[in-house]
């Protein structure tokens, strides 16, 4: 690896670490709740930390705990995870186009290990192609927040004061907002997409009694429908690297 290439990777790794800080803080707060649930169904702190390290998925882990607590079968576990985490399939498709074709192939296996909502959010919207070291930098900060939060939650229960925990819960949503609003300001198509998405999501939440959908399915269906319509109404004309202009 050339010196310049190594400097480039280092730069992306550090940038990832910086962007990973608010993610890690938000994860830490959310993971506490997860740890408390784990404790309630009889998992040890180490088991819950291990689960968090191998899965890195909030809704998926909650669902896994429900299946374990109910003593349901392994097939049911597999189906539950498939349904709840299906949105990652779409995120993975999008990221497959965000990395360079020439990227060292094993990076694809490592990046896949840490496709969470938040990491996907920051890595799918970086300028130009995605350098894998950006993911690794973000993961090196965010993952410990998640794993440690679960461990402590299972060990001691919620030690954060209620108002601090309440405030920290907003951190993850704040990040999503920081990712989608600046491009929406520059690009009217994205602005409309963001607005329509929020309104549709709000409508489906209000109609939960009429159209019962889990949040994972709501995200998946709305993404396919809205991004699908947007692609036909306003397809991006150019090809190549410059996908940041609309």
């Amino acid at each position, binding site marked *: 690896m050339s010196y310049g290439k190594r400097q480039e990777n280092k730069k992306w790794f550090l940038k990832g670490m910086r962007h990973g800080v608010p993610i890690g803080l938000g994860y830490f707060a959310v993971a506490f709740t997860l740890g408390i649930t784990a404790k309630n169904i009889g998992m040890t702190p180490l088991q819950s930390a291990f689960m968090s390290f191998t899965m890195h998925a909030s809704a998926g882990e909650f669902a896994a705990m429900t299946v374990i607590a109910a003593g349901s079968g392994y097939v049911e*576990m597999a189906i539950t995870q498939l349904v709840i985490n299906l949105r990652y399939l779409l995120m993975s498709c999008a990221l497959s186009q965000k990395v360079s074709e020439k990227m060292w192939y094993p990076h694809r296996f490592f990046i896949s290990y840490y496709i969470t909502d938040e990491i996907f959010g920051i890595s799918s919207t970086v300028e130009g192609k995605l350098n894998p070291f950006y993911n690794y930098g973000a993961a090196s900060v965010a993952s410990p927040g998640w794993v440690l939060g679960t461990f402590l939650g299972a060990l001691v229960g919620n030690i954060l004061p209620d108002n601090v925990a309440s405030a920290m819960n907003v951190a993850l949503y704040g990040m999503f907002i920081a990712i989608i609003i600046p491009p929406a300001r520059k690009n009217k198509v994205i602005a409309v997409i963001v607005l329509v998405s929020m309104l549709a999501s709000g409508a489906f939440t209000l109609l939960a009694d009429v159209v019962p959908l889990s949040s994972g399915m709501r995200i998946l269906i709305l993404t396919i429908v809205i991004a699908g319509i947007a692609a036909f109404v306003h397809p991006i004309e150019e090809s190549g690297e410059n996908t940041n202009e609309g």
Partner: protein
Amino acid sequence: MKDNFYIYLLVAAGVTYLIRALPMTLIRKNIQNKYIRSFLYYVPYVTLAVMTFPAILSATASVVSAAVGFVTALLIAYFDGNLFKVAMGGCVAVFLVELFL
């Protein structure tokens, strides 16, 4: 449950990893189709918007503090855009509002 916890976890983590890894490892070429490319380009914006709203409104101890945190984050994101400032600004706004509720 103690005995088979690790089998449960193996199944759950295995399925989750496969979902995340299959497209990433199988789609090695750049997709040329204009509509699929556009679709995938728009995916993150829809997904993140759907995940944010209305879920953010029930993330804190009260809808009021959450709404203030939401608007604060929107404003900081619009005028500044720095990830850390937006996330922390939202948190601080929620914290301050809840002090007075």
